[in-house]
C-alpha cells in the first residue's frame, strides 16, 4: 500500500504522461516555512485550480482514508521544468495542526486546453477535521481551498477496536503499522484463515491490485480485531488448484509475503498437474478436510473468497462431527460497483470554500466492474450452500462497513482464552495429519535419547529411503509435464562475463520480461541409471537424448530420479549439517552438500551438442521427524563458455505420491532456472503424474516412433505412400490452447481420399482416421498464442500406417505475369522455424482459443 498523489491529464489532450507523486508529512524542520506559505498565500498571484475533497471513508483495513483531487488548466504550465507543490494543513478539532505536502515536477506540457489533475490521500483517526489546502507552482502562483471532514464509525464499527488513535493524521506508507495484537490478555485460541486469492473479475489474468489490497487490508484487520494465540493462514487459488502461501503463526509481518504471493500468481500460468486435472476443483475441499483433521483443530476457520470465484466440489462430504469442533465462517466478497465503494464516495460533504478555488464535492475512483448481479439478487453459491449444511455462517462483504460488521459478529461468537495453547507441530498440507509432538530435549550424557532427531540418523534414513526407491523406480514410468518460460533482460542482451552476471544477480533480482511460455508433455522412465524419454503416450521410448526430442529451448533431465540419486550414490559424499529452519510452519533440518566435478554425473550439453560434466552443490531440507525429503536445491558450478548458460539452479519440492499402489518419492513441484550467458534466463516448471508400473502387457522398448504393427500393415497392404500427394485432414477433436502441451495426441480424419495420382489408385479412403501430435504449444509476450502439430499415422484396416506429411505452403492464386514474374505481391509469408518444416503452425487469438473440430488443413506427402 502506498500513498499516492497522481498527476494526470484530463480532457482530450493526452500528450502528457501521468505522473505518480507521494504525499507525506512535512518534516518538523519545514513546518515554520510551511506556515509562512499559508500566511503569505493571500498576497500571491492566483493559480487557477479546482479542489474536490474526498471525504473520509472506511477501508478494509478499518482505517479512514481521505484526500483531495485538484484539477488545473495545463495552459498555465506550458513548457518544461515546471513543478507544483500541494500543502495541506489538517487540524483535528481541539488539536494542533498537522502538515502534509509534496512537490511534483511536471513533465513537458505542450500547448493544450486540457486540465492536469493531482490527487492525494492520507489517513485519519475517528474525529472531525478542518483542512486548508494550498497549491503553488514554480511561478509562485497560488490556489487555496478549505473544507471539513468527519471520520465517524457507524453501526457495528463502533464495537470494533479503533485502528488508529482518534484525531490522528497519518500518511499512507508501505511500512504502515498493521495491527499487532496487544501482548497478554485474552485471545482466541486458534484461528485459521483460508483465503482464495482470485481476481474480482473472473476473466482477469491476475489478481487486481485493488483486490490484492482489499485482501491484504482484510487480513490486517482480522489480526487486529480477532486477536488469536495462533493464526494459521493458507492462501490458495482454485483455478490453479494450488496453495500459494501458508504459514502457521501468521503475523502482520508476513503480510508482504501474502501480497507477493498474490502478485506473482498468474492465472494464465497453471501448474502442470492442474493441466492434467483441469476439471477437478478440489483444493478447497481438501483444505477444509485437512483443517478438520488437524491435531488441534482451530477455534474458528474463516474462508475469504471473491464470491464470483468460489467453487466447491458438490460431492464433498466432511465428517460432521469433526466439522463441529470448529466454528466456520464464510466471507464472500462481492463489492457491487467498486472494490472501494465508500472510500472516495462522499460520506461527508465539503463544508467550506474560500472562493479562490472551485469546489466540487464529487469524488471519483474508477470502478472495478464485478461479475454478477448485486448482493441480494445472487443465489447462494456452492460454498454458501455447503456452509448452510454444516451450520456455518455466511457473512457477505460488499463494503468495508459490511466487513467490519462481519468481524464484529465473528468476534462476538468466539471464546477467548488467557493462556497460549500448547505447541503443536502441524502437519504439512501434503501429508496425513500426525499426532501432536513435543520437541525432544537433549538429555545429559548417559541419559536416554530419542535418536530419531539425530541429524546424521535423519540423513541416513533419508539416504536409505532414496536408495530403496531407486531400486524400485526403474520399473515405473511417469508423465512429465513441463512449463517453460523464457525471459529476456528488459534492457536488452548483456555482454558481461558470467562472474559479473552471477555477482549482480546475487545482489539483486535482474529486470526481466517474459518472452515466451510453452508446455511439453513427455513419458519418462529410468533405465541403466539414466532417464529415458518419449512423447507422452508414444509406443516406444526414444534412444535419442531429450534435447533431440525437444530441440528448442532449455530443458534438463534428472528431475525424475537421477539428480537426487546422484547426491546419495556418491561413495564419499560430504554433507554438512547447516542447522534447523522453519519453512511454512515446518521445522526442517538443512544439510549442504557439494559434489566436485571429478565425482559428478551432472551433465550439461554444449552448444556443439557435446556433453560436459559439471560439479554442483546444494542443500537438502528434511523433516526431522519423518526423515522425508521436503526440498532439494542444486546449483551447478559456473558452466564453461561452451554452454549457453552460466549456471543452472534447480529447486525440487519433494513428497511421497501414492499412485497405483506404489509410493513414489517424486518432486511435487520443480523449478529449474537456466541463467543465460547474455542475461537471458529460462525457467522450467515440471510436474509428474500418471506414474505406473510396467505391467505384463506393457514393455519398455526402444526404437522408432511408429507403431510396429503399422510397418507390417504397410508391407501387407503394399501401401507405400509416394511423395507429393495431396491430403486434406479434418480435425475430429477440438484442440484447446489452454491445458494443452506439446506431446499431446490429436485426432483427425482424411477429408478426402489419399490418392496416388501417378498410379491412379486410392491409398487411403476418405474418413480414414489420422493420429498426430502437438509439437509446440507456446505463448509469446507479443500476445501470440501458437500451436504446432504434425500427423503421424493413418489407420487402414484397423492398423496404423506411418504417415509423412508436410503442410501445403503453396500460396493460392499465384499466377505468373506475362513477363514471367510472380503477379501477387504483399503476400505475408511465415517461414517455419528450423525443425518445424513438417508441422502446421496456427496462431490463436488468446489462451481461451481453440482449433475447432472440423478444421481442415492441406498437406502433402513426403518421403519418410
Amino acid at each position, binding site marked *: 500500500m502506498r500513498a499516492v498523489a497522481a498527476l494526470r491529464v484530463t480532457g482530450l489532450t493526452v500528450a502528457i504522461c501521468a505522473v505518480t507523486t507521494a504525499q507525506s508529512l512535512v518534516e518538523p524542520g519545514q513546518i515554520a516555512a510551511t506556515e509562512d506559505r499559508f500566511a503569505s498565500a493571500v498576497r500571491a498571484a492566483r493559480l487557477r485550480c479546482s479542489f474536490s475533497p474526498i471525504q473520509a471513508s472506511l477501508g478494509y483495513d478499518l482505517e479512514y482514508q481521505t484526500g483531495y483531487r485538484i484539477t488545473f488548466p495545463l495552459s498555465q504550465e506550458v513548457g518544461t521544468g515546471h513543478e507544483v507543490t500541494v500543502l495541506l494543513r489538517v487540524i483535528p478539532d481541539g488539536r494542533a495542526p498537522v502538515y502534509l505536502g509534496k512537490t511534483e515536477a511536471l513533465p513537458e506540457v505542450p500547448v493544450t486546453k486540457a486540465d492536469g489533475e493531482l490527487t492525494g490521500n492520507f489517513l485519519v483517526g475517528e474525529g472531525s477535521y478542518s483542512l486548508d489546502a494550498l497549491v503553488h507552482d514554480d511561478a509562485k502562483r497560488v490556489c487555496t481551498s478549505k473544507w471539513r471532514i468527519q471520520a465517524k464509525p457507524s453501526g457495528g464499527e463502533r464495537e470494533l477496536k479503533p485502528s488508529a488513535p482518534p484525531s490522528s493524521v497519518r500518511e499512507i506508507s508501505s511500512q504502515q503499522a498493521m495491527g499487532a495484537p496487544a501482548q497478554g490478555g485474552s485471545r482466541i485460541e486458534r484461528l485459521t484463515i483460508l483465503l482464495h486469492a482470485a481476481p474480482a473479475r473472473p476473466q482477469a489474468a491476475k489478481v487486481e491490485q485493488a483486490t490484492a489490497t482489499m485482501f491484504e487490508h482484510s487480513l490486517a484487520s482480522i489480526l487486529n480485531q480477532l486477536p488469536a494465540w495462533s493464526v494459521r493462514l493458507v492462501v490458495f487459488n482454485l483455478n490453479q488448484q494450488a496453495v500459494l502461501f501458508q504459514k502457521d503463526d501468521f503475523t502482520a509481518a508476513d503480510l508482504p509475503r501474502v501480497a507477493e504471493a498474490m502478485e506473482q500468481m498468474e492465472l494464465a500460468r497453471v501448474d502442470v498437474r492442474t493441466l492434467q486435472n483441469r476439471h477437478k476443483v478440489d483444493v478447497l475441499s481438501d483444505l477444509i478436510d485437512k483443517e478438520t483433521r488437524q491435531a488441534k483443530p482451530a477455534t474458528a476457520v474463516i474462508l475469504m473468497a471473491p464470491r464470483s470465484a468460489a467453487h466447491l466440489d458438490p460431492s464433498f462430504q466432511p465428517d460432521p462431527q469433526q466439522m463441529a469442533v470448529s466454528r466456520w465462517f464464510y466471507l464472500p466478497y462481492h463489492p457491487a460497483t467498486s472494490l472501494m465503494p465508500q472510500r472516495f464516495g462522499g460520506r461527508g460533504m465539503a463544508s467550506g470554500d474560500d472562493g479562490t478555488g472551485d469546489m466540487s464535492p464529487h469524488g471519483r475512483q474508477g470502478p472495478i466492474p464485478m461479475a454478477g448481479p448485486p448482493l441480494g439478487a445472487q443465489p447462494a453459491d456452492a460454498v454458501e450452500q455447503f456452509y448452510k449444511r454444516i451450520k456455518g455462517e455466511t457473512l457477505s462483504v460488499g463494503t468495508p462497513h459490511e466487513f467490519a460488521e462481519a468481524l464484529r459478529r465473528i468476534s462476538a461468537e468466539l471464546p477467548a482464552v488467557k493462556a497460549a495453547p500448547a505447541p503443536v507441530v502441524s502437519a504439512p498440507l501434503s501429508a496425513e495429519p500426525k499426532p501432536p509432538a513435543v520437541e525432544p530435549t*537433549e*538429555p*545429559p*550424557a*548417559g*541419559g*536416554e*535419547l*530419542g*535418536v530419531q532427531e*539425530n*541429524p*546424521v*540418523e535423519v*540423513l*541416513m534414513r533419508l*539416504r*536409505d529411503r532414496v*536408495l530403496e526407491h531407486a*531400486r524400485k523406480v526403474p520399473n515405473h514410468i511417469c508423465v512429465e509435464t513441463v512449463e517453460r518460460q523464457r525471459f529476456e533482460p528488459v534492457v536488452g542482451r548483456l555482454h558481461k562475463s558470467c562472474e559479473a552476471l552471477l555477482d549482480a544477480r546475487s545482489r539483486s533480482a535482474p529486470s526481466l520480461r517474459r518472452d515466451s511460455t510453452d508446455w511439453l508433455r513427455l513419458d519418462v522412465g529410468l*533405465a*541403466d*541409471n*539414466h532417464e529415458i524419454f518419449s512423447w507422452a503416450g508414444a509406443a516406444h521410448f526414444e534412444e535419442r537424448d531429450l534435447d533431440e526430442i525437444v530441440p528448442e529451448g532449455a530443458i534438463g533431465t534428472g528431475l525424475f530420479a537421477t539428480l537426487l540419486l546422484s547426491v546419495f550414490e556418491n*561413495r*564419499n*559424499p*560430504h*554433507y*554438512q*549439517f*547447516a542447522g534447523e529452519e522453519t519453512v511454512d510452519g515446518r521445522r526442517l533440518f538443512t*544439510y549442504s552438500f557439494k559434489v566436485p*566435478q*571429478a*565425482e*559428478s*554425473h551432472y*551433465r550439461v550439453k554444449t552448444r556443439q551438442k557435446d*556433453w*560436459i*560434466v559439471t560439479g554442483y552443490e546444494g542443500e537438502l531440507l528434511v523433516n526431522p521427524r519423518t526423515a522425508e525429503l521436503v526440498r532439494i536445491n542444486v546449483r551447478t558450478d559456473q558452466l564453461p563458455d561452451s554452454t549457453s548458460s552460466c549456471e543452472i539452479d534447480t529447486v525440487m519440492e519433494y513428497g511421497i505420491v501414492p499412485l497405483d499402489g506404489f509410493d513414489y518419492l517424486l518432486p511435487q513441484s520443480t523449478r529449474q532456472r537456466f541463467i543465460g550467458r547474455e542475461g537471458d534466463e529460462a525457467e522450467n516448471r515440471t510436474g509428474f503424474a500418471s506414474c505406473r508400473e510396467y505391467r505384463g502387457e506393457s514393455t519398455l522398448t526402444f526404437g522408432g516412433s511408429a507403431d510396429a504393427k503399422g510397418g507390417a500393415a504397410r508391407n501387407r497392404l503394399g501401401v507405400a505412400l509416394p511423395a507429393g500427394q495431396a491430403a486434406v485432414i479434418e480435425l475430429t477433436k477440438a484442440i484447446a490452447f489452454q491445458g494443452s502441451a506439446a506431446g499431446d495426441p490429436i485426432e483427425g480424419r482424411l477429408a478426402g481420399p489419399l490418392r496416388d495420382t501417378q498410379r491412379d489408385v486410392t491409398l487411403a479412403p476418405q474418413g480414414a482416421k489420422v493420429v498426430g501430435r502437438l509439437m509446440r504449444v507456446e505463448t509469446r509476450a507479443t500476445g501470440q498464442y501458437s500451436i504446432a502439430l504434425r500427423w503421424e499415422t493413418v489407420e487402414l484396416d484397423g492398423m496404423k500406417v506411418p504417415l509423412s506429411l508436410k503442410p501445403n505452403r503453396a500460396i493460392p492464386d499465384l499466377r505468373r505475369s506475362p513477363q514471367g514474374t510472380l503477379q501477387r505481391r504483399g503476400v505475408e509469408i511465415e517461414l517455419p522455424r528450423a525443425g518445424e518444416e513438417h508441422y502446421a503452425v496456427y496462431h490463436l487469438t488468446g489462451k481461451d482459443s481453440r482449433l475447432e473440430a472440423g478444421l481442415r488443413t492441406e498437406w502433402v506427402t513426403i518421403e519418410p
Partner: protein
Amino acid sequence: MGHHRTLIWVPALLGCAWAADRDPAQILSEATAKVAARSASLPHYTCVENVERNFYGPTRATLPRACSILMAQRPDPTFDLSLRLSTTDRLRLDVALVDNGEIYSWAGASHFRDNDSIDKLVRAGPIGTGVFAGLLDVVMLHDVQRFYVRQRQASAGGGWIEYSFRVPTAASHYRVKIGDQWVPVAYSGTVTVDSRTNDVVRLTIDSGELPKAAGLCQIKESVEFGAAEIAGQPFLLPSEVRQGFLNPNGGAVENAIHLTNCREYSAESSIHFGPEESTETTGSAAPLQAVLPEGLHFTLELVSPIDIDRAAAGDNFQARLVHPIHAKKPNLSIPAGAIVEGRLLRVETIHRRPLRVQLALSPRTVQMNGETVLLRGTRDWKTTMDRARINQPVPAILLPLPGENPSGVFEFVGQHVVVPKGFRSEWWSALVETGK
C-alpha cells in the same frame, strides 16, 4: 553327474615348444579328478580371505560410454578413460565351503550365518565369490563342455598346458547379481595345468560384455594356485587372486585377494550356523545376559591403536567406557573402564587431496561384572556439531554406507594413519536387532 566333456585340439594355436610326450586329454582328465578330490575334502577346511580393493575413476569426468567401447579401449585407453586411483579399502572374511557354495562371516566370528551370501556382509563395492573353491569346481566339474588346448610349454622339469573354454549362458553357473537376483552369464577363460603334477596352477575368467542391467560392463578374474600345507597335508589353494570389474562410466575396481590362516576344523572348532548374537563372545566365554537399550550416551576410549596400513574391515577392536552407563530397562549399571569389543566395518583410504582414511567402527559387546552385554552404537554427531558451532567449523557428516548401520564413521587426514590408543569417541546406543 552325466557330464560329458570333449577336448578339442587346435594345433594352430599351440606353442612352439610342443612336445607330445603326454596326452593333453589325459592330463586334463587327471587334473579334473584332482579337483574333484580336493572339492570333496574342502568342507573340512576354512580360510581367512583378505581382500584389498582399489577403486579407480576415469581421469576426466564420467560420461557413460557403451561397454563395447570401454572394453575395446581398456588395453590402450584414451586420456579421458585412463584410470586414477580414488579409493582403497580392505576386508577380512572367513570363508568356508558348504553344499550350496561358499559362505562367509567376518573374520574371527565363530559362526557362519544361515543363508548368508557375501553381499550381505560387504554391501558397498563389487566383490566376487568362488575364490576359495567354487570357481574352479564350477569350471572343471560343472560348466565346461569343451576345452581347447591353447598353449603348451614343455621343459626338463615338466611344463604346462593352457586350455581355453567358453560357456554359454544356458550352461553357466557363473552368476552376477542384477537387482535382487543372481543371474547366470556366459563366460570364457583358460585353465593352466602343470603337466607333471596334473595340478591346476592358473584359472582365468572373462565374463565378456555383461547385460546392461548388471551395472557392470565386464568382470575378469585370475586365480593362481599353489600348494599349501594344512595340518601336515599338502593342499591346492589359491595363492593370488585378482578380480577386475569394469564400470559403464569408465571406472574400474581391482580386487586382490589372498587366503591366509587356512585350517582344518578340529573338535573344538567347527562350522556352526545360527543367529549372530551367539557369536558375540569373541575372546570371552561369558554367557550373554542382557542387551543395552537404545538412546544411551556413552564415550569410548581405544585400548589399543588401529594401524590403518594393517587393519581391514572385519577386524575386532577394543575400547573401554570412559563414563559409566546406567539404564533403567533393563536395569543395567556398567562401570567406567568396562571393556567394549567391536568390529571394523570399513577401512578405507581416499586418494584425493587431502589424502585421508575413513574407519567405520561398530561396537558389539560390553563386559559388565563378568557378563557380556550386547551393544550397538551410532556416532554422536549432535555433540560433535554442537561443540563445533561454538568454536570450530561445522564438520562434514560421514554417513555409514548402506549395510554399515549402526556404526560410527571417523575420518583422519593422512595416508599411513595410526589411530592412537586412547582415542575417544562419543556414541549413542542403538537398537540391537535380533539376528542382525
